[in-house]
C-alpha cells in the first residue's frame, strides 16, 4: 500500500518536473534557421558541389581511378605539337584537350576521394550547395571547357589520325601498338 502511494507521488512529481522543463524551453531562444532567407555559412571543407575546371585539368585520370562509384566519363585528345593550351598549375604545359568531362552526380557518394587525388586541383568542391533538379539527366554535368566547334574539330582530327594509324598498321601488317590514351 505504501508502494502504491509512493508510485503515485513519484508519478505526479516527475510529471510536474517534466512540465517545468518544457515550460522553461518555451522562453529559450529558437534554433530554427529560416533557410532561404537566412543562410548557414558553409565550411571551406564542406563537400557541396563538385566542379572541374577543365582549363587546368591535366587529364591524369586519377579521379576516375579512385572513384568508388565510377561517376566519371572522361574523353580527352592529345594536343598537336605547337598547339598552346596554357599551363597547368605545376608550370608544365597542358597537353590534353578535355573533350568530355562528365560527372554523374546522381551516382556520387560525396566521399571526396577524387578531389583529394587531383594533383592540379582542377577538381574542387565549390559552394553553394548543388541545386535540386527535375530530371536525373540534369545531374549529368559536363565540365569540358571547349566550344562545340572546337570539339568537333578535335574529334575529326582524332578520327583522321586514327584512320591514318589504322591504315599504316594495316599496311605494315605489324601487331598494333598500344593506342594513345584518347579513350578512357
Amino acid at each position: 500500500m505504501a508502494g502504491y502511494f509512493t508510485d503515485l507521488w513519484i508519478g505526479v512529481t516527475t510529471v510536474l518536473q517534466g512540465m517545468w522543463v518544457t515550460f522553461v524551453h518555451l522562453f529559450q531562444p529558437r534554433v530554427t534557421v529560416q533557410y532561404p532567407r537566412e543562410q548557414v555559412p558553409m565550411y571551406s571543407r564542406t563537400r557541396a558541389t563538385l566542379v572541374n575546371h577543365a582549363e587546368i585539368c591535366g587529364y591524369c585520370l586519377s579521379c576516375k581511378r579512385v572513384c568508388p562509384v565510377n561517376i566519371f566519363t572522361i574523353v580527352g585528345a592529345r594536343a598537336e605539337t605547337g598547339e598552346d593550351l596554357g599551363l597547368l598549375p605545376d608550370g608544365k604545359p597542358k597537353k590534353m584537350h578535355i573533350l568530355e568531362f562528365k560527372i554523374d552526380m546522381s551516382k556520387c557518394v560525396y566521399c571526396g576521394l577524387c578531389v583529394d587525388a587531383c594533383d592540379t586541383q582542377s577538381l574542387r568542391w565549390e559552394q553553394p550547395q548543388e541545386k535540386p533538379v527535375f530530371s536525373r539527366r540534369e545531374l549529368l554535368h559536363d565540365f569540358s571547357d571547349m566550344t562545340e566547334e572546337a570539339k568537333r574539330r578535335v574529334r575529326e582530327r582524332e578520327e583522321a589520325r586514327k584512320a591514318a594509324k589504322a591504315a599504316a598498321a594495316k599496311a605494315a601488317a605489324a601487331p598494333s601498338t598500344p593506342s594513345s590514351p584518347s579513350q578512357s
Partner: protein
Amino acid sequence: MSLAPLVFSLLFVAGVIGYIAVFALLAIWLERKVSAHMQDRLGPMETGGWHGWSQTLADLMKLLLKEDIIPTAADNFLFRVAPYVVFVGSFAAWAVLPFAANLIGTNINIGVFYLVAVSSTVVIGILMAGWASNNKWAMYGAMRSAAQMVSYEIPIALSLLVPILLAGSLSMQDLVKIQAGGFWHWTVLRNFPFPFIAFVIYFWASLAEVNRTPFDIPEAESELVAGYHVEYSGMRFAMFFLSEYANMFLVSGVVTAVFLGGWHAPLPALEIAAETSALGHAITGAMWFSIKAISLVLLQMWLRWTLPRLRVDQLMHICWKVFLPFSFVNVLLVSLWAALSR
C-alpha cells in the same frame, strides 16, 4: 407557439459549428506553435504572414481538395459514415455547454447526464471506423479506444457527481450559477479538497476521453501507425481531426462550467449581469468561458508535448486502480460532507 426558440436554436447551432471550425483552426495552429516553442523551434512561419497564422486554413484547403480514398476491402457504408458519427457525438454534447447565462443550446435539467451520455457515443463512431477500414492496425486502435473510453466514463461520471452533490442540480446553468462572485467561489476552490480532487481526476480522465497523450494509445503513432483513422484521407480525415479538437474544447468547457466558474469572470467587478445588458452579458460570458476553456486546452497541449505514452494495461491500471478508488472515496466523503453540512 412562438418561433423564437426554434430560431434561437438554429442560430445557436450555426454559431456553434462556426465556433468549432474557428476554434479548431486556431487550436491546431496553436498546437503547432506551442509544440514548436517547447522544442525550441518556430513552427509554421510562412503561410499568411504573421507567424503562419493561416497554415491550418491552407491545410484544410488541401484536405478538402484531396481524393476521398476508400479501400477496396473496406465496408463502404460504415467507412463513409463513421467520421460523421464521431463528429455528431462530440458536437451534440455542445448543446448543453453554457457559454453565458442566456447563451446555451438548451438548459435541460439533466444537462450533465445528457453530456456524459451523448459524448460517449463517439466511441461507436470510432469502432465503426476501425472495423470498416478492414485494417489490422485500425482495428487495434478502435478496440483500444473502445476499452479506454468506456473505462474512463466511470471516473468521469463519478468526479462530475461531486459538484452535482454540492449544487444539488444536474443542470449545467445551475452548476455555473452557484459559483457566482469571484474566483474564490468557484467549485474547485470551495469545500476543499473534494472538488479539487474531482477536478484533477476529471481533467486527467478527460485526456483519455479525447485520446490525448499520455493516453493516446488508440492512435499511438509509433505502435499503431495512426490507429483507427489510418485508412482515412482527405475530408473524412479532417472530420476526425475536427471532432478531436471539438472534443478537446468540449471537455475543457465542461471543466470550466462545472469547476472553474463557467461564464463568471474571475472578479465580480468584471462581469456584466444579464439583467443589465443581455447582449453584453452574452459576449463577456462567452469570452470568459472561452478563455478558461482554451487555457485548459493549452494545458492539454502542454502535457502532450511533455509526456510519453502509457501502455494499454497501465492505462487500465490507472483507471481502475487509481482514478476509480479515489473517485469513489471522494464521492463518499462529499456525500457525507453534504449531508452533515445541510
